[in-house]
């Protein structure tokens, strides 16, 4: 090995603590890149392959009852490649292993034996036979939640008829990679399942022979979806069509997209922060090293080493640090990818989720990590180039302190000499002080950005479950019922109060913007489900007007006072002009609210209900469940406390991990920055501090001079970091916003204090480590060395 390279290795070994502090920060950047990019790619590829093999549809639509003869007309729409007409219904399940009623979406399997689109992957058993009234297949998540397999049975209420069915197979479907029941906000595989039965069986049960109520389409490559959807809706309208949607609004796919988007944001935003901080640290440490080794550099030049060779030597040093960071980052990235994979396996149901460890991801991670180290080094090494050998070997002139504005300001404050030294040092290297402070700020910001989500979830839960949805359960009717049905509901055992609402599929138009949604029509006196405007006041839909979720209003670029054109999808083509009378904060879905009388008036029928919200006497819960399971009119039940429990569990599961991970990442940055700053200060000022010790200053006083600057910088950095964190949180809320959900931007004082505490703690720990070095300083040796 060349002598210069030996120096390199010994330098790294000597600077191990600083090198490791930098490498650790760098490794987090590499880890997140490897993990997020790797996971995102694997997930995207798995999804695309699955969609492709299973012939995932492009367009979905539904109607009340459309004749099968319509299929040919749909197939004739230009651009349509395949059409599949089917039957989709909701039903209540009575499971032998659970007293609560569960709910299922039931889909038909065509007479041909297999769907032409959205093919089912049979994991176990077989598909149901044609005409077999008692055979079903279930989605794998549901089967796993109950430990069901072929041969197991339960009962299902089909259009009021309770019948025993037997599982013949367990399947996966591209439509249900992520399964979430209607009205739910989290998957609950125990209480919501997907069932497939032979078409003739369901058709007979729901009186839909020769008809369909759900249709899926695939189009030829490159077809514009909008005209196809328009034609499809026009064809279905006479049969109670409820509008159509494409993949972007298909629930399972939309959740998957949301997840991919988050991974993408994570891969693009987070690593650069860590890489920039490590570049800064490399610059700082190498800059100091080069300054300390001026004489050696001069010597090497005198010996005939070229500037390039010497620069290369220091760049190699930074690459060495970078390489350590990259390797740690790789290992952590590998572990994190596997952890992510296990999370995805839990929530997303793919036939296979291949986490290929793609070399390219590791190469990109390594390239980014090494580049960061190199860029940081480059800026420091520039100084080597300019150094003339004769100048390099003579000791550097004392740093020039100027009497600038800042200095005069300091003097006005009349501090004691040690404090003066601290302030002058900040004033002398303002850029370095600012960057150090910024690094510490980033650390605080990361904690705020990582932990604010729990504040937001708290708010969201409070709004969703305490203020807005105060019902204990939602009962869904198989078909719309007149309002009088509420009396029957209130007569169910355990029901103390019932209120109804009607969901009406509409298309809203504002200028060229349109949105297909469901309007919730309810009576003004309803109290179990309430909506709120931004200031937490209860907002009641007025007699003639529409109240919109704020995000929906934003989508339509509309505000209070604007007139929307409302097209009722189950009616004629008439567009009704309705003013927006209010907007409400809403975190799940995109809804609009209307007064029941107004809606019924437009629809031209007596008020009808599609669901009832009920308040339950908990003691009689079991009785109610039995009644619901037996009731033909109820096609579904959502038990709110279960929804809440699912949500709480999921959050609690991730809260501990998230807290640890973010605190760890932030502490790494804080320690990396503060420790390196302190070490550099110590090295620059060793003589000065030793002189002070010789003059009779105590160790404490000397430490104050050295560490005081860092404490001041940390003190400045924390509030700045908290503000930055709030900004990052706002950015995250914005980027997570989708049609499915939105997070409120809430950062509590606890989160701010926690962030400040972690950063202050990291500063103190770093300071204590360096303080030990001050205490051990050999005064004679320090004074003897020539600087």
């Amino acid at each position, binding site marked *: 090995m060349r*002598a*210069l390279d030996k120096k390199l290795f010994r330098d790294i070994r000597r600077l191990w603590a600083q090198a490791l502090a930098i490498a650790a920060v760098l490794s987090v950047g590499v880890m997140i890149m490897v993990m997020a990019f790797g996971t995102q790619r694997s997930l995207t590829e798995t999804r695309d392959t699955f969609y492709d093999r299973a012939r995932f549809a492009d367009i979905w639509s539904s109607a009340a009852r459309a004749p099968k003869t319509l299929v040919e007309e749909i197939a004739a729409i230009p651009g349509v490649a395949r059409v599949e007409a089917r039957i989709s219904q909701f039903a209540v399940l009575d499971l032998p292993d659970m007293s609560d009623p569960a709910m299922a979406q039931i889909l038909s399997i065509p007479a041909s034996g297999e769907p032409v689109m959205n093919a089912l992957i049979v994991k176990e058993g077989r598909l149901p036979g044609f005409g077999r009234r008692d055979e079903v297949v279930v989605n794998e998540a549901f089967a796993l939640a109950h430990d069901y397999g072929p041969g197991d049975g339960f009962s299902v209420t089909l259009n009021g008829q309770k019948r025993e069915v037997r599982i013949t197979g367990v399947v996966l479907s591209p439509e249900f990679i992520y399964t979430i029941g209607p009205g739910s906000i989290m998957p609950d595989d125990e209480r919501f399942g997907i069932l497939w039965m032979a078409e003739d069986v369901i058709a007979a049960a729901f009186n839909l022979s020769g008809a369909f109520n759900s249709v899926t389409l695939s189009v030829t490559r490159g077809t514009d979806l909008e005209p196809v959807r328009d034609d499809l809706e026009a064809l279905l309208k006479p049969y109670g069509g409820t509008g159509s949607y494409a993949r972007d609004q298909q629930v399972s796919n939309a959740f998957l997209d949301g997840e991919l988007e988050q991974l993408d944001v994570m891969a693009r935003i987070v690593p650069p922060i860590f890489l920039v901080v490590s570049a800064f640290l490399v610059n700082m440490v190498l800059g100091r090293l080069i300054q300390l080794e001026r004489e050696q550099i001069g010597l090497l030049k005198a*010996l*005939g080493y070229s500037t390039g060779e010497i620069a290369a030597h220091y760049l190699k040093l930074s690459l060495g640090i970078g390489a350590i960071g990259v390797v740690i980052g790789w290992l952590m990235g590998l572990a994190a990818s596997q952890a992510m994979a296990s999370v995805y396996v839990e929530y997303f149901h793919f036939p296979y989720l291949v986490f290929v460890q793609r070399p390219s991801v590791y190469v990109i991670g390594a390239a980014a990590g090494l580049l960061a180290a190199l860029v940081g080094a480059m800026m420091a090494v520039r100084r080597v180039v300019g150094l*003339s050998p004769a100048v390099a070997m003579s000791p550097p002139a004392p740093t020039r302190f100027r009497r600038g504005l800042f200095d005069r300001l300091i003097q006005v404050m009349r501090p004691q000499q040690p404090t003066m030294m601290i302030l002058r040092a900040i004033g002398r290297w303002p850029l370095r002080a600012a960057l150090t402070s910024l690094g510490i700020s980033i650390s605080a910001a990361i904690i705020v950005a990582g932990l604010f989500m729990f504040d937001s979830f708290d708010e969201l839960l409070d709004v969703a479950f305490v203020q807005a949805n105060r019902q204990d359960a939602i009962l869904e009717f198989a078909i719309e019922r007149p309002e009088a049905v509420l009396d029957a509901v209130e007569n169910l055992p355990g029901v103390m109060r019932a209120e109804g609402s009607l969901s009406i599929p509409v298309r809203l138009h504002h200028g060229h913007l349109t949105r297909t949604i469901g309007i919730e029509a309810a009576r003004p006196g309803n109290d179990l489900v309430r909506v709120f405007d931004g200031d937490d006041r209860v907002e009641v839909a007025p007699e003639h007007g529409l109240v919109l979720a704020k995000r929906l209003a934003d989508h339509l670029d509309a505000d209070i006072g604007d007139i929307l054109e409302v097209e009722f999808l189950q009616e004629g083509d008439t567009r009704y002009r309705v003013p927006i009378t209010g907007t409400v904060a809403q975190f799940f879905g995109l809804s609009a609210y209307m007064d029941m009388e107004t809606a019924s008036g437009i629809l031209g029928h007596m008020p009808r209900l599609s669901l009832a919200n009920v308040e339950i006497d908990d003691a009689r819960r079991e009785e109610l469940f039995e009644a619901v399971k037996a009731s033909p009119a109820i096609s579904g039940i959502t038990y709110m406390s279960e929804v809440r429990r699912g949500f709480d569990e999921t959050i609690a599961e991730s809260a501990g991990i998230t807290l640890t991970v973010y605190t760890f990442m932030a502490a790494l940055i804080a320690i990396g920055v503060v420790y390196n700053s302190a070490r550099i200060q110590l090295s620059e000022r060793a003589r000065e501090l030793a002189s002070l010790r010789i003059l009779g200053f105590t160790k404490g006083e000397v430490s104050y001079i050295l560490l005081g600057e860092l404490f001041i910088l940390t003190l400045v950095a924390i509030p700045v970091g908290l503000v930055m964190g709030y900004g990052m949180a706002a950015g995250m809320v914005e980027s997570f916003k989708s049609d499915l959900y939105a997070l409120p931007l809430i950062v509590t004082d606890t989160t701010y204090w926690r962030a400040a505490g972690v950063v202050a703690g990291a500063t103190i720990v770093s300071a204590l480590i360096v303080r030990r070095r001050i205490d051990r300083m050999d005064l004679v040796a320090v004074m003897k060395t020539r600087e």
Partner: protein
Amino acid sequence: MANGMNRVFHTTGITKVYRTGEVDVHALRGVDAELYTGEFTVLLGASGSGKSTLLNILGGLDHASAGQAWFRDQELTAMSERELTRYRREHVGFVFQFYNLVPSLTARENVALVTEIAKNPMKPEEALERVGLTHRLDHFPAEMSGGEQQRVAIARAIAKRPEVLLCDEPTGALDSNTGVQVLDALEKINAELGTSTIVITHNAGIRKMAHRVVHFADGNIAQVVTNDSRIAPSEIEW
């Protein structure tokens, strides 16, 4: 005298002006000098008399403000940075007052630093043997005395078989005992390898071991003395 007529360095009107803050410092004021192959030359003079500046220019470490300097028939003052690096690499050995060893490298490795980039070097072990440090090969600078460190520096300087050896106060930081050891080493190299050696010193005693002594004062040469008889380093009065 055959040697004497063979010039290794000569300069004409070399001037060096440093600008420090508001003041111009004239380190050299038009120096005309001639130094000869194989000779042991001592540059004497008070601090600030310009001898170090001249040595730095001759060694290719610094640029002259005006005037010309030649190494044999190559004009140093006309060389680019790259050419100067090459010149130092191939022809010049340096010894400094503060040894300037790389602290993280052992004696052998400090010498290897040079032998690795030289064209026809001696082995690091041979160079260290010439300065009497065979027993210190694997010691780090911090484990050696000042005299030993300086001898490592000399070994490092001569390992590439340079034509000239430039020493700036090589004994400046040493006591008389170790100083003599270092001078012995220099004298031996000069005699055995015929390396032209230029030594800057404050110590007037050292002049007696030189072939030629150049006295500096106020940025110029005040006097050049040729010694008819030289004394051994051990006889120098410190």
